[in-house]
């Protein structure tokens, strides 16, 4: 069976410190995986390893059966993997519409073209408009990204990630810093727009993770402590001890 994403004995050392210590994980197509773990467990490093931002010390990552060894972030993205960032990585001096369209262009084959006008790219503009509406950002179409509120910037971050329609999506703390009502709305939005896609999500809000994920991966000190359904993870004594504590009891 070919998995959407597969980690094979993945290691990452920064100097003397080993941050990822032999990770093995296989995520089938269409599964939503929530990754939880205490601070410093290596969650963000794991995302950086998968997306090509950081090179593994050893081991391999397979995307739809293909090794990502030596691949640059843009090559991995072209293979169908898209990621978001914990701290919004948007284009501050471009408008909301332009930000989203930048995410759309490559996937529609416009590449480095400089002999076609953006205004004439109907498919790209339609997809951008649809996405903008789904994110409820259409009122802010021409506002510069740097002038948006925090929650709107998070929505834009998510939008840029989803724009290309990649089949494997990594979300790094999508609801961090949001109010309760924003989180609820946002969770629904993520559920809606990632339907049918393979999703890996790092999240500290347990309500969001347990509500959204089909499977939960618990990462502690760079190792996988558990990888199971939310219910099973909740009952796992080791996990309770290491991380979940009161949340599982409640």
């Amino acid at each position, binding site marked *: 069976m070919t998995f959407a994403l597969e980690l094979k004995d993945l290691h990452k050392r920064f100097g003397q410190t080993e941050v990822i210590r032999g990770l093995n994980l296989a995520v089938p197509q269409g599964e939503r995986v929530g990754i939880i773990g205490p601070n410093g467990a290596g969650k963000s490093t794991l995302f950086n390893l998968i997306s090509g931002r950081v090179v593994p010390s050893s081991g391999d990552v397979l995307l739809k059966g293909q090794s990502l060894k030596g691949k640059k972030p*843009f090559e991995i*993205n072209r293979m169908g993997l898209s990621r978001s960032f914990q701290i919004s990585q948007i284009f501050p001096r*471009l408008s909301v519409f332009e930000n989203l369209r930048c995410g759309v262009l490559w996937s529609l084959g416009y590449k480095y073209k400089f002999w076609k006008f953006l205004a004439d*790219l109907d498919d790209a503009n339609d997809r951008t408009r649809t996405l903008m509406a789904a994110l409820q950002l259409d009122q802010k179409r021409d506002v510069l990204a740097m002038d948006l509120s925090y929650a709107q910037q998070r929505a834009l971050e998510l939008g840029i990630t989803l724009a290309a329609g990649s089949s494997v999506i990594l979300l790094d703390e999508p609801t961090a810093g949001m109010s309760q009502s924003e989180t609820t709305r946002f969770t629904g939005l993520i559920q809606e727009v990632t339907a049918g896609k393979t999703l890996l999500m790092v999240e500290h809000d347990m309500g969001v993770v347990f509500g959204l994920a089909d499977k939960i991966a618990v990462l502690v000190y760079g190792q996988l402590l558990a990888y199971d359904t939310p219910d099973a993870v909740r009952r796992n004594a080791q996990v309770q001890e290491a991380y979940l504590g009161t949340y599982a009891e409640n």
Partner: protein
Amino acid sequence: MRRFLVWALFANVLLVAPLVFDSSLSQSLLSQMGIAIIVCLSYNMLLGQGGMLSFGHAVYSGMGAFLAIHTLNGVSGGLALLVSLVPVVGGLGSMLVAAVLGWVTTRTAATPFAMITLGIGELVWSMALMFPEFFGGEGGVTGNRVTGSAPLGVSFGPQIQLYYLIAIYTFVCTALMFAFTRTPLGRMLNAVRDNPERVAHLGYDPQMVRYLSFVIAAFFAGISGGLAALNFEIVTSDVVSGTRSGAYLLFTFLGGSTFFFGPIIGGILMVLAFVVLSEFTKAWLLYLGLAFVLMVMAAPGGVASLIMMNWQLARKGRLRQLGVGYLALAVTAVTMLLGAGAMIEMLYHLQLDSALGPELKFMGATLDCRGLDSWFGSALVMLTGGGLFELSRRQFARDWSLIQLRMAQDRLLGELP
């Protein structure tokens, strides 16, 4: 529709300018302005649109100029090419040079990019003196633009004919560079400027975006160089110097790198400074430096941003409220500059022209460089002007923020249901 009007206006200005300013000096100035506009716009593809601070853009305009002058001499030697197409040869040649050198430079961004362009600029400049066969050594390479066939009687002998050739190139190049900002590559260049890390996760190789844009910018720089070669009929190694690159940076910035039309203003200012200001005073580089420092501190968006800020006010009908403020600023600034200018001119006179005697003419007044009254008088004018300027500036700043506040208020009220 509005955009069409702006372009029509631009075309008309290019068309009518030499009829309004019809002296031979004006025609020469206007020709040089066209050339400067193209090169500043091409420089801004790097600086304003791509966030690439290049210290070596003159390499590309300069190489274009050399290639063009050699091509022109080829035409004189029997090469079948229209003289009007020689600048295109310069552009294509520069593109090739940039395709090689740009591969090295655009591998990096930010400070390393700036350093490498500086290094390559110095390299090419030193090469210019080492290979006199191509660069003409100290004397440069000369050519004659009145050569080859003269279709429709256009020989480019009279300056006005060359002006219109430059005007056509200026219009077409400006339109093409504007069009570039509306294409996928042009937009991704902005994205790379804002956040190259993010671009890399959207399927684009940021280095490739920079590289392609760099090569395209070099094409337009080369055209500008080719036009300069036709205009002056001589190309010396100065055209690839770091000083020249610095001037592009300075005037693109002064004109305003955050708006597309900023470098057009920059190009015009460049010619005015280099040709006109330098005629009036030996201290012109000092004044230029001061203007640059003031601009960086007071209005980092350049002249274009000042225009746009006031345009916003004018559209809301609030510019009139600042009329008195602007008048006060202008009068006090001129007073201060008069005082400062008198002292600078006296200093330069003492250092450079003291053999001509202690007296010099400044704005119709006779100053005595060795007399205490002239120095005291000038200092008094400068300090009085400066003090009053500071007072008016504070008042102006208060008025300005009040108007901004009112406009924000209006906006919020307007959004209410």
